[in-house]
Each structure stands twice: as structure tokens, then as C-alpha cells.
């Protein structure tokens, strides 16, 4: 590949940057002698059992939903009556064979259901041991959590003091303690090579982009190429998983999709209609892709026409309602402002005489009025500036000029407001470089 010939002063710049970096790093390490780019994950071990629900008399499968809820969340989701309170029409769906799902064996809700018989264990299927890994983005937090876990375990490992407790009270507490201890022991926090490596990669890529500020260079070109390739693929994947699968494939071949990709997919009320409706976008898409064919590429204009037409229609009403009309309405307000002031003695006396309560007087609010008038002038003059039929000469020209002034103030303000956001972004990246990667800052 052709690396650009770097001019000497550039080489100087490069060297000085690298030297600066190394010096800064070593200084930072002198104060925070902790390893670079360390990442932690918390691992929770769960024992899961395969269960299937016993079919209920009307074929509704509330247990399935309840169990699914339990699999995703702790028991309380069942304890609260809401889980059971599904609208009836949702429970009318009749599955072909009883649904089989893996559930957390230690979940009391599941245990209850196993007792009740709404769920039953699938025979001769061994229990599976699961590791649920959740990355901890902040290393300080990781340490804190580690410490907390140790303290917890320590506390729980001490047996309950039996004094002043009846037998069963004591047993209850002991049981609770053992349960809690089990939970604590199931959770551990370990350092993750995968994520540590990731931090290194991310840091190098970050530096690659920043190097563009010095000049265009091979390092940047490489990073740029990676970014383009990965992001293009990423967006195609997003479209595939979050649109094509649920909104197209799921309609065209629901059973296949449910079997392969979306087991949780709810059965449609009218599969045939969904299928037919899904054919239309499919047809449009094929027309669009027809461009790849040697002949008849013009057909691709038809879907374009649909897209442009529909969204032109949508935008027309939406923008007139939410911007045109709403903004006009917001602009219509009195150009004179008053502030309420307590009624004076005379008024109060008069009111008391009449046996009523004195209404508060009001004072002319100069600032408010001025603001209102300025606001009015602003809106009008800027609108005048936008008039296309009128050449910017004479009175119109002068008014439009005032309009331009308002525009400039508007833009200046927007610019000023933006700086903070932009700086924040850089701060975020620096926090990553200095904190997550080099570990010389919090």
C-alpha cells in the first residue's frame, strides 16, 4: 500500500506526540500503579430444569406465561396478582403440544407451580448449569461489588444466635441464612480476558481516528476501512434481525420462524391476511432489486414512487399541524405583560364594605412587554426575510435585514449551546482512554 511521504515537520510532530504519550503514561502510572485495561464480569451460576406445563381444561396456558415470566424475573412477578390477571382473550390460544421451557430450579414460584402441578418436570432430562455473565463497565464498581460479596458471605457464614428463639423460629432463620448464603456463593466476579483485550482494541482504534487530526495517514486509513466494513454489515444485521425477521419472515412463514428464530412469537389472529399483506412489501422490494437484472431496471422506479408518495403525504399533514400551526399558535400572545400585585388598602376596604374579597391589582411589566414585542418582531421579520416574491429592497429589504439579525443571534446561540455537547463527547473518549484503558484516571 502507498503510505504518504510524511514531511519532516510531521515526523517531528509524530515523535513528539508518542514521547509525550509515554512520559504522561509513566507519570500517571507512578501515581496509580494499577494494571492497564482490566475488565471484570460478574458470573452467576444457575441450575435450570426443563419443564412442560400440564394442559389446563380450556386449553389456555397461563402457567406457560407465568413460568416464562419467572424464568426472566424473580418470584414477585407471580406473587403480584397481575401476572395471573391476563385479559382472557389472550389466553385463548391453543398450542399444538405443551410448551417446554427451561426454568431456574431454585425459583420458589416455579417450585410452587411444580407442587400445584401446573408445571411438571420433563423426565430423564438432566438439569443444566448456567453461567450468566454480566460485564461491569466500571472497575471501581467491580471492586466494590467484590468487597460487598465477601462481607455478605462472611456475615452469612456465622450461625444464627439461638438465644430467645423457639425451635421453629431458629430453623426458619437458619434455612433463610443457608438460602442467602447459597445465592451469594453462586455469584462471583472474575476478570475477563475477552473484555480486557477488547479495551485494547478499542483504544487503538480510538487513537487511529484521532491521528487524522495530525494528518491523513495509513493508520487512519486502516481504521476508516474497518469502520466502513463493520458498520455496513452492522446495519444490515440490524435491519435483518429487527425488521425482516419479525415483520416479513414471521408473516410469510410463522411456524418456521417460531421454530428457528423467535420461539416467543405470539400466534397471529389472522395468519392468511398477514401473509397476503406481507407479499406487498416483498413485491416492492423485488421490484427495487430488479435493478440488478440486465433488463427492465426502470421497474425500480415504482417502489420509489410508493415511498416518496406515502411519506410526502405523511409529512404534509404532520408538519403543518405540529410546526406550522402549533408554532403560529405559540406565537400568538399579548404584546403587553402585567404582574399581579396585592390589592391596596382602599380596594380592600371597599371589598370589605361590599362583603367580598378584594381582587389583586396588577402592575405593568416593562421587561415582559419588551420581551413579548421583541419576540413578535423576530418572528415577523424572519418570516419576511423568507418571502421569495419580494426582492430585498426598500422597506422589505430593511425588514429582512432585521430578520437576518435575528437569524444570526439564533445561530450564534445555537452554536454556543452546542460547544458543551461536543466537548462532552471528547471528555467521554478521554475518560475511556485515561480511565478504562490506561487506568491513570477515575
Amino acid at each position: 500500500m502507498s503510505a504518504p511521504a510524511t514531511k519532516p515537520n510531521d515526523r517531528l510532530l509524530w515523535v513528539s506526540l508518542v514521547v509525550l504519550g509515554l512520559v504522561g503514561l509513566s507519570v500517571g502510572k507512578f501515581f496509580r500503579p494499577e494494571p492497564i485495561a482490566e475488565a471484570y464480569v460478574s458470573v452467576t451460576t444457575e441450575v435450570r430444569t426443563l419443564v412442560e406445563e400440564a394442559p389446563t381444561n380450556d386449553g389456555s396456558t397461563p402457567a406457560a406465561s407465568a413460568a416464562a415470566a419467572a424464568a426472566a424475573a424473580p418470584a414477585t412477578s407471580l406473587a403480584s396478582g397481575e401476572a395471573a390477571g391476563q385479559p382472557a382473550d389472550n389466553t385463548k390460544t391453543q398450542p399444538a403440544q405443551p410448551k417446554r421451557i427451561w426454568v431456574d430450579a431454585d425459583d420458589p414460584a416455579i417450585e410452587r407451580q411444580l407442587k400445584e402441578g401446573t408445571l411438571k418436570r420433563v423426565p430423564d432430562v438432566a438439569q443444566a448449569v448456567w453461567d450468566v455473565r454480566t460485564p461491569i463497565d466500571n472497575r471501581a464498581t467491580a471492586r466494590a461489588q467484590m468487597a460487598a460479596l465477601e462481607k455478605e458471605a462472611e456475615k452469612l457464614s456465622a450461625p444464627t444466635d439461638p438465644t430467645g428463639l423457639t425451635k421453629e423460629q431458629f430453623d426458619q432463620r437458619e434455612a433463610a441464612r443457608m438460602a442467602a448464603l447459597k445465592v451469594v456463593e453462586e455469584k462471583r466476579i472474575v476478570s475477563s480476558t475477552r473484555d480486557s483485550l477488547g479495551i485494547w482494541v478499542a483504544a487503538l482504534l480510538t487513537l487511529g481516528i484521532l491521528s487524522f487530526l495530525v494528518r491523513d495517514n495509513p493508520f487512519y486509513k486502516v481504521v476508516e476501512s474497518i469502520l466502513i466494513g463493520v458498520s455496513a454489515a452492522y446495519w444490515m444485521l440490524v435491519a435483518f434481525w429487527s425488521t425482516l425477521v419479525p415483520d416479513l419472515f414471521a408473516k410469510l412463514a410463522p411456524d418456521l420462524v417460531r421454530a428457528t428464530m423467535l420461539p416467543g412469537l405470539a400466534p397471529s389472529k389472522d395468519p392468511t391476511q398477514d401473509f397476503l399483506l406481507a407479499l406487498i412489501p416483498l413485491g416492492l422490494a423485488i421490484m427495487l432489486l430488479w435493478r440488478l437484472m440486465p433488463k427492465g431496471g426502470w421497474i425500480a422506479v415504482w417502489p420509489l414512487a410508493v415511498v416518496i408518495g406515502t411519506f410526502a403525504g405523511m409529512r404534509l399533514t404532520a408538519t403543518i399541524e405540529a410546526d406550522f400551526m402549533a408554532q403560529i399558535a405559540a406565537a400568538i400572545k399579548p404584546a403587553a405583560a402585567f404582574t399581579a400585585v396585592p390589592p391596596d388598602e382602599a380596594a380592600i376596604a371597599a371589598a370589605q364594605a361590599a362583603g367580598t374579597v378584594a381582587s389583586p391589582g396588577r402592575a405593568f411589566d416593562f421587561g415582559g412587554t419588551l420581551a413579548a414585542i421583541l419576540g413578535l418582531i423576530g418572528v415577523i421579520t424572519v418570516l419576511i426575510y423568507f418571502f421569495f416574491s419580494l426582492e430585498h429592497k426598500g422597506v422589505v429589504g430593511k425588514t429582512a435585514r432585521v430578520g437576518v439579525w435575528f437569524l444570526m443571534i439564533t445561530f450564534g446561540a445555537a452554536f454556543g449551546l452546542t460547544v458543551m455537547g461536543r466537548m462532552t463527547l471528547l471528555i467521554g473518549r478521554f475518560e475511556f482512554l485515561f480511565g478504562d484503558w490506561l487506568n491513570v484516571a477515575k
Partner: protein
Amino acid sequence: MQPRKEQLPPGIRGLLVRLGRIDRRWIYLAVAVAIGVPMLAELRLPEVPEKKARATFEAIESIPEGSIVLLSFDYDPASEAELEPMANAMVHHCASRGHRIVFMALWPLGKQMADKTIDSVLKYYHPDKVEGVDYVQLGFKTGNEGVIKLLANSIDGAYTTDAAGKAISEIPLLANVRSVGDFKLVASISAGYPGAQQWVQYADSAMPEAFKLIGGTTGVQSSQLLPYFPTQMEGMLIAVKGAAEYETLVTEKYPVTESPERLGIGRERMGPQLVAHLLIIALIVLGNISMLAARGLKGGAR
């Protein structure tokens, strides 16, 4: 007639003029220093909440405890640094107030953003909250404002399952939520299109009285959202400044004991901001001085 500039010794003026044409890479270096040094020095400043932050806080306080609120994460990692602080504070606020939270995203990467906040705030400070009952993560849906239009008619029109692939009909929290109108409050934390503006256009204008709308925005968005506050948007948080103020309000009322820094990111980031802003102000001044000097060279300011 000689302009006053002529009194300036030519050497200095030449310097000033050259300053005006300085290689922009020196400016870049200055920015890097202005951000990096105070950050490493951990410079902190107090924050005084302004009207918009207070309005936001009040909006969430005013709705009855246990209301269902919709938080739409309409941003991606590119704006994370700016919007994460307010997202964290808002989730902590809603959870502490006892509201039930529905998370969704109009930006594809918004889901990951929401997940991050759920892990670092909701699950961390509120371990008692149960997924499906106290909160639910609907995830991302393509379609920009189209999704909002769908939600305005019916939830299941837009989402058939939640992010975990669980059917909407099986989620207790959503059992009685028919459309976006059934939320007491909708907050869009947005970095652009689609975002708070689309929520105003397609949800709020469709049913203005149904719910309160809050817009958490980046600085650049704020200017075009300001006209919507407070009539169409009851609350508004602008960039890290707004987040820092809001953080102050939230943590005053609902303080957290361990690792409070997660609800202090905004305030933490205001220190480097100060220096950076001063730098830019200095740059503007320098630029103009050198321009005047240059005019002086060319003989008088026109």
C-alpha cells in the same frame, strides 16, 4: 489619515497577523490539553438548577406514584457521553418515585444504551424492581416516527414481543396498556432524528392531554426543541449542564449511599467544560484581534 493601529510596533502586529493564520493543528492540541488536564485534575464545580431542570423534576414528581412511564432511548454511543448522565438520573428518579418504567428505543443502538442504564442504575440501586412488573425493555424498532404513530394507536401494533422475545400479551406490566395514551409520562432522551421532536409531532399532537412529555436533548438539538417547551414538552434537559442540574435535584431528594458517582457523571464533566469554553472564548478573541491587526496592515479598517 493613519488608522490608530499604526501606533502598534510592526513586529507585534506581524505576530498577531500570523497568529490569525496559525496551523489549526495547534488549536487541536490546545483543545486536547484543555480537556485532558482538568479531567485528570478532577476539577469539580457546584450546580444551581435552572427552570427547565426543575420543570423536568416536577413533571416526574407530580404524576401519581406507581404510574407507568415510557422512556425512549433515542441516541447511540456517539452521543452517549452527553446523554447517559441524564438517562441514569431519570431512571433512578422514576424508580425511586415508584413509577413503573417501559424502555424502548427509536435508534437501533438505543437498546444497548437502555440496557446499560438498566444494569448500572435500575438493577444496581433498585434490586427489588422486577422485570415484567416494575419495568420492561421493549428494545428497538425500525420505522422512526412510524413507530410512534403505531404506538399512538396500539402498543402491539408496534411491538409484538419485548426485547427478550416474550409476547407483549404475556407481560403483566403491559396488560392494561393499550396505546401511548395510557402512559402518564413519556420521556425521549434524544440525540436527533428520530427523537423528542418526532414525539411532539406524532404522539403529543395526537393526544396532547394524555401524558406529560419530557425531552432530554443534546445541546445541538436544544435550540430547535426550545419552542416546544413548556407548552408541548412539560420538561426539558439540555446536555450535560441540564443533566448536572437535574442530578443535583434528584440526588438531593433520593440520595444513594454506595458509588454515587453513577449519578454524578454530569457534574463530574462540567469541570473540563469550563476550561474548554474559556479556551474557545479566548480563540474567538484572538481571532478578532489578529483580524484587526491585519486590517491595520492593509491600512485602516473599512
